């Protein structure tokens, strides 16, 4: 029974077939275009129900690149406008990258109160990737800066982190549900500071997913991880130019199901 307002014949925005689709169907339609940012953006402008279905995909991934100008380090605009619009909780995949030279070490000094505020609103991250993280500089109060990430983060990627083995393991141990771990490192990795034997990781993450190592020379770090976490149980490994290959494959002999190897990295000697 029609109960007032516009008559059924009156064309209104809500009478569009698109807006009358069940939300489950809208989600299926949106799933086909999750990689097409332009179409996703158009969908968010259609109506509220399409906006709700499309917006998490649109902001699924955020890449922020720090850059320096006249010795000052700047955080990029997308971080600020997404923070102002309240969109940062939608981000599932955060990459803090540094493509410049010389590299900017991501240290405690760059996280003043204003910068920390948007970072505290990344409450649903699944994947965290950070370039040139100076872990040592955040200790001992590292939880103030990264303490809100751990419950949801499943995948952590560190490109050339700075810190002792113990400090890096402590950082990994903040993420109690961590499954995947990726390292891309140089030769000076882990050699810069003396280890503090009293630094014990707060959690033992499951680490049963992917271990990805690229140009990795920190075999000692993995040995310390096994000591502190009581073994290694990765099911998948992606290894390219890795020191300590025998040790690593041996450590996961009982759990390894999939391995990615690069035969043509090798040069006969």
């Amino acid at each position: 029974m029609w109960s007032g307002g516009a008559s059924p014949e009156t064309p209104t925005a809500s009478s569009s077939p698109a807006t009358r689709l069940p939300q489950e169907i809208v989600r299926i339609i949106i799933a086909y275009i999750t990689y097409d940012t332009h179409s996703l953006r158009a969908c968010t402008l259609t109506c509220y129900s399409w906006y709700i279905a499309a917006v998490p995909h649109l902001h699924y991934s955020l890449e922020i690149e720090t850059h320096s100008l006249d010795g000052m380090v700047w955080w990029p605009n997308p971080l600020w406008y997404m923070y102002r619009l309240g969109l940062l909780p939608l981000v599932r995949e955060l990459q803090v990258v540094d493509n410049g030279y010389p590299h900017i070490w991501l240290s405690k000094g760059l996280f003043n109160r204003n910068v920390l505020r948007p970072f505290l609103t990344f409450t649903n991250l699944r994947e965290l990737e950070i370039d040139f993280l100076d872990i040592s500089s955040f200790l001992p109060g590292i939880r103030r800066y990264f303490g809100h990430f751990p419950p949801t983060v499943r995948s952590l990627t560190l490109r050339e982190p700075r810190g002792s083995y113990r400090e890096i393991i402590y950082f990994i141990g903040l993420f109690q549900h961590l499954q995947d771990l990726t390292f891309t490192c140089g030769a000076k990795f882990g050699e810069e500071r003396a280890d503090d034997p009293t630094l014990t990781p707060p959690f033992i993450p499951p680490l049963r997913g992917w271990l990805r190592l690229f140009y990795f020379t920190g075999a000692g770090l993995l040995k310390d991880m096994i000591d502190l976490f009581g073994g290694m149980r990765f099911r998948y490994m992606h290894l390219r130019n890795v020191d300590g290959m025998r040790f690593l494959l041996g450590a996961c002999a009982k759990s390894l199901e999939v391995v990615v190897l690069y035969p043509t990295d090798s040069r006969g000697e």
Partner: protein
Amino acid sequence: MRYTRVLANGFAARSSLRDFDLSQHKMLRVLQIPSCIGCATNNGQSDTASTFLKYVLSTIPPSVFLRIIVLYWDHDFSGIKPRGSDWPPFRELSEVARAKEASQHRLPFKVLRKLYKVREFRLALSATVSGCVAEYATRMLEEVVAEEKLENGFDDHFPEPVVIYDPHRTWRPAR
């Protein structure tokens, strides 16, 4: 035999073939290798690649049901623009360029046929690419398999591979 693996930043990691002994890996199901084993055929490294892979395969226990997956990433397809380029993510390729690309993708078969003599395995070609280019990449790999079938054939001594799509969310247009 010893190998020096040259790192991109100039450092070298040293290892021997024995470091890749997988005889204790009873849970192993899949060995993934990059499609560049095919490029090695062109630049004279095919012996290195096949020696390495022959050794690895010979160490895997016979009881293990093994699948080898050859990985093709976005950058392996010349018809796909580099990550971060503007939308749409495809380049215009001439028929000749497309045929040349398909013949490049067939190169791993030379190494893989040798490996099958060492140990039986199931073979898959994986388009490990972003969703927006999945159709292009999988169609290309299906053409590659069809051409290989036409020229060299598949039989019990080297069964026909399957083409799979393994999505990963990395390709997004620049903001």
